[in-house]
C-alpha cells in the first residue's frame, strides 16, 4: 500500500527499473538509478542526524540530482522547502530561517553567493552540495556513497512532504504546508485523469519552488513515465523551447498560460508538428480565449485542460477545453471538482450559491493544506469549519476567489476578494510590494496597482509620494525593489505624485489610482 509519496515512486520504479525516470539533459537517471541515488541521500541525512519532520531547504537550479534529493528527503522522513535560487539573498535567508530548516541542499557557488553559511550557521555536515568536487563547506554528491544504505523512516500520511512559500500581504512570504495525503490526492487524480503511463514523456517547465512542478515530477515518477527538466537557461527562449519540445517528444506539457502565449507569439511554432504532444495542461492564471484558440491550432494533436490551482488546496477543479472552442465562448470556466474533492460557492449572506449566483469558492477534502507554517492565526482565517453544518469536524479552505456558479455545476472565475494578483502565473500580494517601497528612506508613502494584461495576467505600477527634500528617480526605486523582491514583482512603472487619492474612510482609493495610472500609460 502506498500512502507516502516516495512509496508510490518506489512501486513505479520496481516495475520499470531500466526506463528513464528523469533527465536534465546532461545526467539522465533510470528508475533504478533514481532509487539508488535517493536512498543514498536518505542514508546521508539520517547519518547526519535528521529527525522525523525536520525541514530541508532546497536552494539549487533544477537537475536530476536535485530530484533524487527531494525523494531522499522524503525517504528520510523529512520535509523539503524548495526556494528560488534566483531570489534576493535576504529572501532566501528569510525563508530558510522561517521554516527553521535543519539541512540545506544547494550548489557550492550558490551557497557562497547567497551567504548561506554565516547567515544560517549550520555545521557543514548538514549541507549537501550537488556538485562533484566541493570544498569543506558541505558534503559533496560524490561523497554520498560512503554513507551506505538506510531504511526509509516511518511516517504518517498527514505528515508534511513539502512547504512552498507564497507572497504574503504583510511583506513576508508565508509557507503552505502540504502533507503526503494532500500531494498524493492530487498526483493520483492527475495520473488517472490524464492517463499518464510509462510511455509518456512529461515536461517540467515550472521551477521546483512553484507547485506546478509537483504534477510534472510525481505525475511522471508514480507512473513509470519520464520527466524532462527544461533547463533554467533555455526556458525563457521561446524558439529554443519549441524545438526542445518537438525533439524531446514531450507528450504531456504543464505550464502557466503566459508561457504558452510566449511560445505562440515568438516560438516560430509553424516549424513543428508536435505529433507526440497529446495533452497540454495549464494553471496559475486566466487563459484569454482569444490566445487559447491559436495555441490550440499550433498544437493540433493535444487535448487542453484548465486546472484551477490555489496552492493551499493543490488543484481542486478542472475544465477540459472543447476542440474547437465554441465561437460564443468568451471566457474559460475553471470547471468542476476533481476526484474526492467537494467545492461550493458561499454567498455574502452565508448560504450556498445556486446556479447563476456569485460567491467565494470554498474547498473541502484531502487536498486542503495542513496550514501556514508557524502562522496559526493566519491558518484559522483561511481554514474554517464547514459553514453549512456543525455536525462534525469538517475543515474547508476559503480560496479568496470570487466565482459564479454555471449551469453544469462548474464555476467561472471572476476575481479576488483581496489584493492578490497573478503575474505570469505567480501570486503577488500588492501589500508585499508596498512594504518594499515604504522601506525606501526617500519614500513618504506608496501604493501599487495592477492593471490587467492579457498576455502576462497583470502589470504592476507604483505610485510614490516622495519624502520631503528627497530626490527620487524611477530607476533607483526599481533597483531598490529588485533588491528585495522577485523579478516579476518589481513594478514596471513608477509615477511620482504629491498625494495618494483616498476614499471617504481614509483608505487608499485604488480604483481612482488605477484609472489615473492606466490613462497615463
Amino acid at each position, binding site marked *: 500500500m502506498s500512502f507516502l509519496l516516495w512509496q508510490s515512486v518506489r512501486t513505479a520504479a520496481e516495475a520499470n527499473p531500466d526506463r528513464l525516470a528523469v533527465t536534465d539533459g546532461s545526467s539522465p537517471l533510470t528508475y533504478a538509478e533514481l532509487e539508488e541515488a535517493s536512498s543514498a541521500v536518505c542514508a546521508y541525512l539520517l547519518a547526519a542526524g535528521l529527525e522525523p519532520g525536520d525541514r530541508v531547504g532546497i536552494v539549487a537550479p533544477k537537475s536530476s540530482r536535485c530530484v533524487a534529493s527531494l525523494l531522499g528527503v522524503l525517504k528520510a522522513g523529512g520535509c523539503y522547502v524548495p526556494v528560488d*535560487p*534566483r531570489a*534576493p539573498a535576504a529572501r532566501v535567508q528569510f525563508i530558510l530561517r522561517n521554516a527553521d530548516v535543519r539541512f540545506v541542499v544547494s550548489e557550492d557557488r550558490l551557497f557562497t553567493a547567497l551567504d548561506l553559511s554565516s547567515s544560517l550557521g549550520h555545521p557543514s555536515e548538514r549541507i549537501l552540495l550537488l556538485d562533484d568536487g566541493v570544498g569543506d563547506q558541505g558534503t559533496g554528491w560524490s561523497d554520498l556513497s560512503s554513507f551506505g544504505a538506510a531504511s526509509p523512516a516511518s511516517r504518517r500520511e498527514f505528515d508534511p512532504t513539502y512547504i512552498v512559500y507564497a507572497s504574503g500581504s504583510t511583506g513576508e512570504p508565508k509557507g503552505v504546508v502540504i502533507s503526503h495525503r494532500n500531494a498524493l490526492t492530487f498526483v493520483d487524480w492527475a495520473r488517472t485523469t490524464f492517463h499518464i503511463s510509462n510511455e509518456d514523456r512529461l515536461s517540467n517547465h515550472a521551477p521546483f519552488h512553484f507547485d506546478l512542478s509537483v504534477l510534472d515530477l510525481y505525475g511522471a515518477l508514480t507512473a513509470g513515465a519520464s520527466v524532462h527538466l527544461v533547463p*533554467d*537557461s*533555455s*526556458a*525563457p*527562449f*521561446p*524558439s*529554443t523551447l519549441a524545438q526542445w519540445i518537438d525533439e524531446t517528444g514531450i507528450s504531456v506539457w504543464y505550464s502557466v498560460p*503566459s*508561457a504558452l502565449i*510566449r511560445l505562440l507569439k*515568438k*516560438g*516560430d511554432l509553424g516549424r513543428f508538428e508536435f505529433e507526440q504532444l497529446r495533452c497540454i495542461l495549464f494553471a496559475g492564471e486566466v487563459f484569454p480565449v482569444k490566445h487559447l484558440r491559436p495555441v490550440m491550432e499550433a498544437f493540433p494533436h493535444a487535448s487542453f485542460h484548465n486546472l484551477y490551482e490555489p496552492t493551499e488546496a493543490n488543484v481542486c477543479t478542472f475544465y477540459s477545453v472543447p476542440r474547437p472552442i465554441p465561437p460564443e465562448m468568451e471566457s474559460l470556466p475553471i470547471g468542476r471538482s476533481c476526484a474526492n474533492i467537494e467545492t461550493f460557492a458561499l454567498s455574502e449572506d452565508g448560504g450556498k450559491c445556486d446556479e447563476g449566483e456569485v460567491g467565494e469558492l470554498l474547498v473541502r477534502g484531502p487536498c486542503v493544506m495542513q496550514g501556514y507554517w508557524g502562522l496559526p492565526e493566519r491558518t484559522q482565517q483561511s481554514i474554517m469549519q464547514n459553514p453549512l453544518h456543525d455536525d462534525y469536524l469538517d475543515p474547508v479552505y476559503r480560496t479568496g476567489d470570487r466565482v459564479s456558479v454555471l449551469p453544469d455545476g462548474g464555476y467561472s472565475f471572476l476575481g479576488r476578494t483581496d489584493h492578490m494578483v497573478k503575474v*505570469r502565473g505567480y501570486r503577488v500580494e500588492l501589500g508585499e510590494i508596498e512594504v518594499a517601497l515604504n522601506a525606501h528612506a526617500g519614500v513618504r508613502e506608496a501604493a501599487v496597482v495592477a492593471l490587467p494584461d492579457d498576455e502576462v495576467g497583470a502589470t504592476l505600477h507604483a505610485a510614490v509620494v516622495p519624502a520631503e527634500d528627497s530626490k527620487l528617480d524611477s*530607476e533607483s526605486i*526599481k*533597483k531598490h525593489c*529588485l*533588491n528585495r523582491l522577485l*523579478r*516579476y514583482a518589481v513594478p514596471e512603472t513608477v509615477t511620482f505624485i504629491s498625494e495618494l487619492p483616498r476614499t471617504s474612510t481614509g483608505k487608499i482609493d485604488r480604483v481612482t489610482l488605477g484609472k489615473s495610472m492606466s490613462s497615463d500609460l
Partner: protein
Amino acid sequence: MKEDLQKFVNGSLLRGSEQVDSNESLLERGVIDSVGLMQLIEFIEDRTGLRIPDQLLVPENFRSVDAMDEMIQNLRNP
C-alpha cells in the same frame, strides 16, 4: 551601444552592487528569466530602433553583453 547595454545590465537587471564583465555569462548568473529577457529586448529595440527577429531569441545571442552586441552589429550590417 555596448557600454549602454552593460550599464543597463549592471544597473537594472543585477541586484545590489553586483556587476558583470562584458564577456561574463548572464545565463549562469540567473539574470535572464522571461522577465529579464523581455526587459533586454525592449531596451535594445528602443535604443537601436531595430527589431530582433524571433529566430534570434536564442541563448547564444543573450549569453553575455558581448554576444548581444555582436547580434546587434550583425542586425545593423546584414
